[in-house]
Structure formats: C-alpha cells, structure tokens
C-alpha cells in the first residue's frame, strides 16, 4: 500500500484514502462545442501510458475530498511530487535532475539516509524532490 502526500492536508496518508483520477493536465476547452473531431478525440479518448513518469490526478476521497495532481513513476510507484489542482505542470527535466542528485550509491546497502528513492518512505516528497534551496541572499552573512 502506497503512502501519498495530499498537498491540501499537507501530510502522507495511506493509499486506502485515495482514488486515482486518470491522467492530469488535460484541460477541457472553454468552447468545447467548437472542438474538431480530432481535438475531441485527443481530449477524451487518448491517454499516455508511459513506462516511467506519469502526471496523474488523485482524489483524497476519504479525506479532504480534494483533487490534486501527482508525478509518479509507473515502474517503481515512486511519487516524485504531488501538487494542488490548478498549479502548473512541473518541469519533468527539473524533477529528474533534482532526483538524480540524490540517486543512491550503487554500493551494497550503503545508502545515505537522505538520498535515494528509498528515502521517500518517511520524508514528505516535497522535501525530497525540491532542489537544495539556493542561498538566500537577503539573509546576509550574519
């Protein structure tokens, strides 16, 4: 059973509380009646089925009830990121780059605590996946 971080509740909850809502970032046209047959086909019928990273919708149906979006790896089921509905689609390359920095050592069992896909077990994904915070210049040297 997966742990999924609800971006509204701001905590990880067991998969039992959630329901998958299919692919994310498929916007319904504001003038849908004018859509061409091809555009409507793409909108309603065509879905990605990647072996790898997918952007998908989830609903915290037995929790706050909110729909949100997630970036999940379909091979490992690892959630790279979850974010609120309406927020822009994160840049996949940036996400992957952020994760590659943290790829675990190849060495047997010699995995730093804060690195590697395994580390997401007990750390909120937003803390795993964001790049190291840039030094905040406004704080000065003190």
């Amino acid at each position, binding site marked *: 059973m997966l742990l999924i971080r609800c971006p509204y509740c701001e905590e990880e909850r067991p998969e039992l509380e959630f329901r998958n*809502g299919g692919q994310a970032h498929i916007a319904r046209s504001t003038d849908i009646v004018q859509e061409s047959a091809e555009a409507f086909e793409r909108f309603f019928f065509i879905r990605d089925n990647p072996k790898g990273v997918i952007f998908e*919708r989830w609903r915290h149906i037995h929790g706050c009830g909110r729909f949100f979006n997630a970036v999940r790896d379909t091979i490992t089921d690892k959630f790279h990121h979850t974010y609120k509905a309406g927020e822009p689609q994160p840049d996949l390359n940036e996400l992957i780059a952020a994760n590659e920095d943290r790829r675990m050592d190849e060495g*047997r069992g010699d995995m730093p605590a804060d690195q590697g896909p*395994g580390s997401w077990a007990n750390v909120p994904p937003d803390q795993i996946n964001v790049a190291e915070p840039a030094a905040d210049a406004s704080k000065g040297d003190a």
Partner: protein
Amino acid sequence: MAEPASFRVSGKGRLGSKGANFTFDGASYQGVEGDTLASALLANGVHLVGRSFKYHRPRGILSAGAEEPNALVNIERDPSRKVPNVRATVQEIYPGLKAVSQNRWPSLAYDVGEVNNIASPMFSAGFYYKTFMWPKKAWEKFYEPKIRAAAGLGVAPDLPDPDHYSQRFAHCDVLVLGGGAAGIAAATAAAESGARVILCDEQADLGGALRFEAGAMVENKPAWDWAQEAIAKLAANDRVRVLPRTTAFGYYAQNFVALAERVTDHLASPNPGLPRERLWQVRAGRVVIATGAIERHMVFADNDRPGIMLASAARTYLNHYGVSVGRKVGVFTANDSAYQAAIDLKKAGTEIAAIVDIRPASEGDAVQQARALGIEVLSGHAVVKTGGRLRVSSMAVRSVNVGAERVIPVDALLMSAGWTPSVHLFSQSRGRVAFDEASQRFLPGTYAQACVSVGASNGTDRLEATLEEAYAAGEKAAKETTGGTKSAARPAGVSGEAFAGGMLGTTPGAENGTTVAAFVDFQNDVTAKDIRLAVREGMHSIEHVKRFTTNGMATDQGKTSNMHGLAIAAEVLGKDIPSVGLTTFRAPYTPVTFGTIVGHAKGELFDPTRRTPIHPWAEAQGAAFEDVGQWKRAWYFPRAGEDMHRAVDRECKTVRETAGLFDASTLGKIEVVGPDAAKFMEILYTNPWEKLEVGRCRYGIMLREDGFIYDDGVVGRLASDRFHVTTTTGGAPRVMNHMEDYLQTEFPDLKVWLTSITEQWAVIAVQGPNSRKIIEPLVEGIDISDAAMPHMSVREGRICGVPTRLFRMSFTGERGFEVNVPADYGQAVWEALWAEGQKYGACAYGTESMHVLRAEKGYIIVGQETDGTVSPYDAGLDWAIGKKKRDFVGIRGLKRSDLVADGRKQLVGLRTKNPRTVLEEGAQIVANPREPVPMTMLGHVTSSYWSENCGHSIALALLQNGRKRMGQTLWVPMPDGAIEVEVTGTVFFDPEGGRLNG
C-alpha cells in the same frame, strides 16, 4: 515397522523432556515438546514421509526449515481443520497431532502411482504441453481430470474454515526480517540506539543458523546462549516487538512489509478466542534484511531417496533437536559446512561412512578435523548413484575423473553444494541483485528502498563480520529514523565458522549427456536432463526454461533449486550465469493462507450492508428483500399464499386503483448550494436550469463527455441558490465524484458547495389516485391542491410535525408525492402514512412493482435501458436537452458522427403476439428467424414484465432504427423457437398522461 524412539541422542539438543504423542498415517509415535513433525519422525527413525508430485517417488525430509520441498503432509486437527501441504519441517508437534501423508494410494509404502516413475521417460520437460494437445475435447473431458487426480498434492478441505484470522497494522522505526545472529544483532543495536523495533522470524525459536552452528561463540559463550539472552532482553523492551513463528512474505513499496504470524497451529487446544493466524502490515522507517542463506543439495543420480538430506539439516536435527538422522551416515559435499555436520555427528556417536568431497584434496581445517576423528575423506570423488527404495541404503562412489565405483552402505546421506543467500525479500523490494563472480552467487546490488541487507543474505560469511555489519546497520537505521545519536555496545569474544566452497549444477556422473534422474527441483520433480532438454528445444531465456520445465514453480518457489537450474541451463547454452539471468522473486516468500489475507472480511463483514430507516417495518411485514449494491431493498410484500408474481400483480393493480407506499430512501441525494448553483447545474445536466422556478422540479439527464447517459433523476429547486438533486440508487457515489471533479478541476471559480444527503433524508413515495388524500391530513403549512402544487413541484413544510421536503412527482404515471423527512423520523412518518393509506386500501409495494409500473409508462432505468453506450437521442429523451445551451458535459460528444448517424439502436416498446408470453431480458431481436446462424441481430430486450394493468406482457428494447420500425413484426429467437413481437411505442399505459394530474 517403526523403530522405537532410539534416534534421540542423550545429551544433545535443546528440547526439554516433556513428551508429546502424535500419529503419522495412523501409527502412534512419541515426540518431545519443541519438536517439529520432521524432527519427531526422524527421532523415530521415519524418513519416508511423502510421494513426489509427478513420479510418485518415495521422498523423505530434505531440510530443517521453510525451504522444504519434499516433506509435505496433511495435518488433521478435526473434520473441518484439515490442512494440506504443511511442511513437516515447520509444523511443531503437540499432543494428539494427527499427520497424514499425501499423494499416495493405497499407502505410502505401496503407491500405485509409482508406475509413473517407471514410465518417467514419457514425463520429460514440456510433456503436458506436447502430449495433450489433441484432440481439444479430450483435454477437458479426459486428460485434465486424470492428470489433476494423479498429480495432485494435498487434498483441499471440504468444510468451511471455522477459524478466524486477524489483521494488524503496525509502524516502527526499524523492522528486522530474520532472527538469526545478524537479525538479533541488528535489532539489539537499533533498540539500544533508541528506535522502535519489530523483529520477526519464521521459526518458533529465534537463533537462525545458530541452531546448528554449535561451535560459534559470542561474548565467550556459546553463540546460541548469547542469542537467547539477547532475545530475552529485546522481548523485555517495550519499544521492541519480537514475533516468532512469523514469516515476512511480501515486501511492497515504501517499506510496507507483510508478515504472517502463525498463532495457534502449534497448540494442542488453542483458546478459541485466538486467531489462527495474524497478518501484520508493517510500515517501517528502515528495514534490515537478515534472512540468511539456504543450503543447496548436490545434483547427482537418485539424489532424492528418503534419508538423503542437507548437511545443515542433519546438523540442526542433532544440535537443536537431539536427533541423529541415521546410524551410518555418508556425506557428499562441495563445501566445508558438511564437514561440521559429520564432525558433530561423529562426536555424538554416529558412524560416518565417508565424506565424499568433489573438490581436489586439501589439508584445510575441516579435512584435518575430520581425519583426526577417524572419518574417511574421499577428496576428488563423487557419489554417482544411490541404492535403496523407501530409504537410501548405499552410495556408489568414484573418482571425479574416472575409475571403479565403490558401493558404501549408508542409512543416511548428507549433502551440501554450498549456500544461496536469501535475497528474496531484497528482490521483492525491487532491489537489483548482482552476481558475485568470486563466490558464484547473487547478492544484493542496487537498492530501491530504505533497507539494508546484513549477514548471510548479504554474502557476509564470517560471524565476526556479520555481527559487526548487523550492529552497524541497526545503529545507523535507528539514527536515521529517530535522529538519535546513541550508540550500541558491540559484543566481544566472537568466533564462528565460515563455510568456503560450493558448486552449481550437476556433479560428475550426472553431467550433460547422461540420462540419470538427478533431481534439481524435488517438489516439481524436475531433473537436470529436463532442463537440458528445454534448452535444446529452444527455451533460451531462464523464464522460458522455468515455465517449460516448471523448475522453481512449486510452492517452495525453488529455494533449493533455482541456482542449480540456472547453472545447468547456462552450461548447455554456453553462457555465463549473469547473462542467462535470474527468475523473478515474487511474494509470497512461503505459502500464505487465504484466511490470513482475508482476515475478518468474510461473511457478513465482507461488505457493509445498508438498510433504510423503514427497513424494520418492511421486515416485520414479511417483505422479500433484494440486494441493490450495498442496500437491502424491499422487493415485494407477499400476502398469505402469494408467490412473487401474484404479489407484484396485486401491488401494481392497487397502486393504479387507489394508492401504494414505496420506500425510496435509497435514492441518491445531493444538495447543490451556492450563488452559482444554477450555473453549475447547467454544466452538469443537459437540461436548462437557470429559468426553473423556485418550487418546481425537472427530470435531469447527466451525460459523460462522450455524450452517453451517465445518470438521471428529478431535481427540485428549493431556492434560487439551492437544488435538491436525486440520483439513481447505485449511481450516487460516482455522480457525487463526477460533480466534485468538474467543480474542483474544470470550474473551480463557481461558488458552489456539494453535500451528499442520501442518508439524511428518508423518502416515502405515495403514489396513486388517492395519494393526496392520504398525505393531506398529515401535512402542515403546504397547500397541496393541484392548483397550488401541480405535478413536478416541491415545497418545504411539515408532516406529522417534522420537517419535510415534499415533492409532487411520479415514477408510476399516477398522481404521486415523494415525502422526504429526516431519516430518524422515516419509520414514524411511514407508519402514519400507512395508517392513513389503510383507509383507502393502499398497499406497500416493493422494487419489483416499481419496475413494472415505470415500464408501463416507458420510464427508463439508467443501467437497465442504458449500458454506457446509449445517448439521450437513442433513449428518446431529446426533449431533455437544452437546445439553446452553449455548454454542458457531453455537448460535444453528442455531436460525434457516430452518435448522429443513421442506424443507431433506439428505445422502443415490444408486444408479443401471444400476450401471455413474457420475453427474456437480454434476448436478441432479429428480422428473419430462419436466417442461418449467426443471424443479423437488430437489438435486444432491456426490460420485460407481465403487466397486470395492461393485461398483456410488456417489454422495452433497444432496436436498430427502432423508431422507424413502429408496427413491424420482428422475432426474438429462443432455444425453443422464435417469439413473434410487434414494435410499439414505449408507453403502454395511459399514453396521454392524464393520470399524473389526477
């Protein structure tokens, strides 16, 4: 035949002296409390315990643990507790235990099925695939039942399982899988470093390999004693949970690990309050995998006779259970660990016939120790065959190169081809194993989760190194999860054994080109030559070899056989092992009962049952109920002497003649509230809503984006910003989800709030010409005259002194009301209405009559007349689509070329030529019943009933170009002849609709 319990070695073993009598195949034996069935049988000199799966060869006890492929028995506690395929090496005995051997007839010693062994050349790899391909019918009728009868293992119990099983969720900082030296060390270190720890082990006694490694020392005392003290300390720590008899069988994402705890199978008379087994679903911050290693057998001719077993198993039986596995024991090995077994047995007084070592002569410690005890060591030799039928009686030995065979009498033969690290759970965690060339074994390579392997499962051989590795891992895991900084003190005075050497594949005498029966997989009866044959026949992937030969596919999942099978395939393929690959390790690690997986979710607790507030009244009236989703709904209310048809006929007549009461509480209800409520309704339903007056109702159609009908229901406008929406009974949750989806993700700017009110309101439909008279005396504050409250209107007021949302609406075609009252008052109001209704001879009617009455009027039921491919046009509901609307869900889908094309199936009525014939729902409709099969099918019947009100049967159907076929004669072919029907409109009763208005 059974000898007395004379194989117990006094002064050996760690069991007490408390006896426990048990039976095996009807014979009584004495064991000792703490024995497994295997150790107790061996103590009695019994090696023959089963017959093999395919060839029915006599089989004994191979191992002393969970990897056992041979010693599978039936444990019969009572008639409803007969458990098949129990590993005798795992089952602990208790006084009165009754074990029965499997897969033999008429007896274990004389098994008719043994003829399969003589015919074994027939049963080569892929035999089933190749032999039983033709004719197809013979497979179903003849081959399969015969094969299943002949090649079964245990017999499944035929009574319901009387036991109960529990399930628990648990969380911990550090979960340690395996309670050997490594696991105990890791758990101790983690606990001392401040972590919450769970330690589980599949055995009754924790200690792992220390059960047999008698020479190992920790803190200058026997390692077993150190281990027991450490476990006692862990068990006393309230931050630690120690789970013996608990197998970690599945490792899932995010360190979610499933454990099966066997709670009562070892008890003579378990407390009935205890579950038989308990499923632990553990979420761990870190997992330490300390699952040890499993010894492999040697692959040589006739290596499966009873009495031939793993060296470590014999050593376990001696050092832990105090049992010698024979009087004159041979050893065949490619590994030093078998020497330790021979040495321990020799010291305990058992004669060692010879140690046959396939490796060249050496003067290593093990060899020297053996020689010093006077044991003959035959280096560079191999066992090339064995003798004996129900028990091994000899081994034939020769030099690995060439030379004469020397036959040495033995009554047991120990073997060791080396150790296979148990990477199953690591692999299940999606870690990738890597092949270590130097030691010729797969070891944990790339990790995918927050876990770490230690000890033998990580390829760490020496006890000193194992303990250091495990302490470090436990400490690190604790620090990572708790943020603590405490360190654990390491034990001193550690010395142990390290087992060097080993081999994969066949031994001389069973090499490529030979045809001997050298077993690789005992449980599935797969030999080395089967694997070679599979490769020669074109199976070049190890996954194909596995499926073609069934190597490793039995319930033991090839714990002893996978590496040998891989090596044999690699040899024939001329490839190295890593490039042939390893088959996938899958959960469960060992078999898990269905009971454990199911837990309490069975019978009444399988799924929730929903009952309406009026349910008790209907029950008291003797109503028959039907399941509608999770709901129990009153189906019909039979009076004395009535069957269902008579009851339904009476109910239908009564509703139209006077009135009837119907419990519609299960109807889905959603309140749509907010300044933009009407705007939102415009989007979700095809109908126009902005102009619907407050106090009026409308029948709404909800589509999916593709234009097909998704749900329907009557919607009342209670205020300009408040709609009371009803949905189908089954559709309520998905309609709510659908609405939330559009509100949250497509139209988040709309100021609307959605509330499910299904269970807040009980709904009593009062239908029929006298309905108004029935409710009139009970309603307060609402003018219910036709002028003030016409058909399709809604008012708020009071009934019987409680608030009501009173709908004037009808699903029967009669004047009707639906009385919504708070659920708590549902039954009281129903009873008041019932009392009034009695004055007019009203009846209570159930869902069956509701279906008939609505079909008489041609009202559709979503899910019956529709199946997800029916548009409103198809259903004749064009009128419900707001023609001037610029947007609603499905507006574009409705314009799709296929949805507006000619030839779609449309809803029509059907009348049978013989008015008494009632069509079968789902039956197909054709134009020419004499057309050869397959006929051209024009459509199908969606609803069909006898209508007492019409005096003839009625049916609704979806029919190609149906509305253009009015009056046509068509046919419904049935097995006993085609039924003639006429296409009609969908309204069979009161087509003008005058009765709605009274």
